[in-house]
């Protein structure tokens, strides 16, 4: 099973530290040394605020990803359990963004990167579970309220096991 980061609206305070953390993790600390417009600020998760919830939304790393299924340019693949986008291959057709039911794929324009014809390069952008970042997903490390967690096969299995035990206990309590 692919792991994924999941936010909890009860714990999230909507501060968006995760969004900056995401950018810093992917752009690298070099951004603090270069021209302020010399890097891209494209967080791969978005804090959504509604009447009821504040919570970041990001890729669920689906087992059968809709984005990957519709990509005709071979830019989306699963690498070490992370559904990832190869920006070099992305033609900006937006199909993946349209396909994702969570809105977890965003189209972004890359500053300073041009297509062969001189037009600005755009790409689909999404969470890659910080697969190239030491220490794993940055968003959950920087979150001040521990509102994000990495759901893995192990802890999800444990969650389900607990639920089943709970259901069993409830049934037993009814019998007695």
């Amino acid at each position, binding site marked *: 099973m692919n792991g994924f980061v*999941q*936010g*909890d*609206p*009860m*714990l999230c305070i909507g501060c968006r530290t995760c969004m900056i953390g995401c950018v810093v993790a992917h752009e690298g600390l070099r951004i603090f040394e270069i021209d302020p417009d010399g890097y891209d600020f494209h967080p791969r998760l*978005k804090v*959504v*605020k*509604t009447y*009821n*919830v*504040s*919570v970041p*939304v990001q890729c669920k790393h689906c087992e059968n990803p809709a984005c990957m299924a519709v990509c*005709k*340019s071979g830019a989306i693949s699963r690498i070490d359990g992370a559904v990832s986008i190869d920006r070099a291959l*992305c*033609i*900006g*057709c*937006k*199909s993946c*963004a*349209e396909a*994702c*039911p*969570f*809105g*977890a*794929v*965003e*189209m972004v*324009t890359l500053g300073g990167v041009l*297509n*062969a*014809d001189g*037009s600005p*390069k*755009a*790409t689909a952008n999404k969470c890659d579970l910080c697969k190239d970042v030491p220490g794993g997903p940055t968003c959950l490390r920087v979150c001040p309220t*521990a509102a994000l967690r990495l759901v893995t096969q192990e802890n999800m299995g*444990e*969650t389900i096991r*607990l*639920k089943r035990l*709970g259901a069993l206990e409830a049934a037993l309590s009814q019998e007695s």
Partner: protein
Amino acid sequence: MPSEFGLFVSADPGKCSGCKACELACFQSHHVKRNKVGLTVGTVAVPVTPKLYVTVMETASMPIQCKHCENAPCKAVCKQFAISRADGVVIVDEKKCIGCKDCLMACPFGAVSLLPYFVDGRPVPQADSDEGKVAAAKCDLCFEDTAGPACVRACPNEALHLTDVDADRKRKNIAAAEALAVINAGVPERGLL
């Protein structure tokens, strides 16, 4: 605020019946001036050359049309500069097209066809052929029509819509965020200290 990214018409194969009303509407709207096409079939004197292509499989159908890619491969490969992209719309200039077919090959969706090029009801002559010139044809989002894409309007099954992925994303984000309240409520050991 206008979308930063190109809009495109997307189809719902679950709703599409494969009737080709979209193709005819597309053709009609693009040939009123160029080939004096009126409102009835009888006014047509040129081959029907749409810019989207209804594709039918045993169990499903939908029109295939241009996604107006941000880094459009068709545009990238066109040596004649016959394909341009302005305001998010990728457009073919048939006058410049020499029929090299590179764009047809480059487009991963098959959204480009090579079709007869008629003007004023007559084929545009080609050097060595009586049949006239052919040119790349693909969706231009009816950019000249203030009412928007003709295909979207013509579809009897409302299978087509103009998609703004960024606006869609925000809508879907909200739904996903709301869902997380329910999802987390179902996690027994959730955040308890």
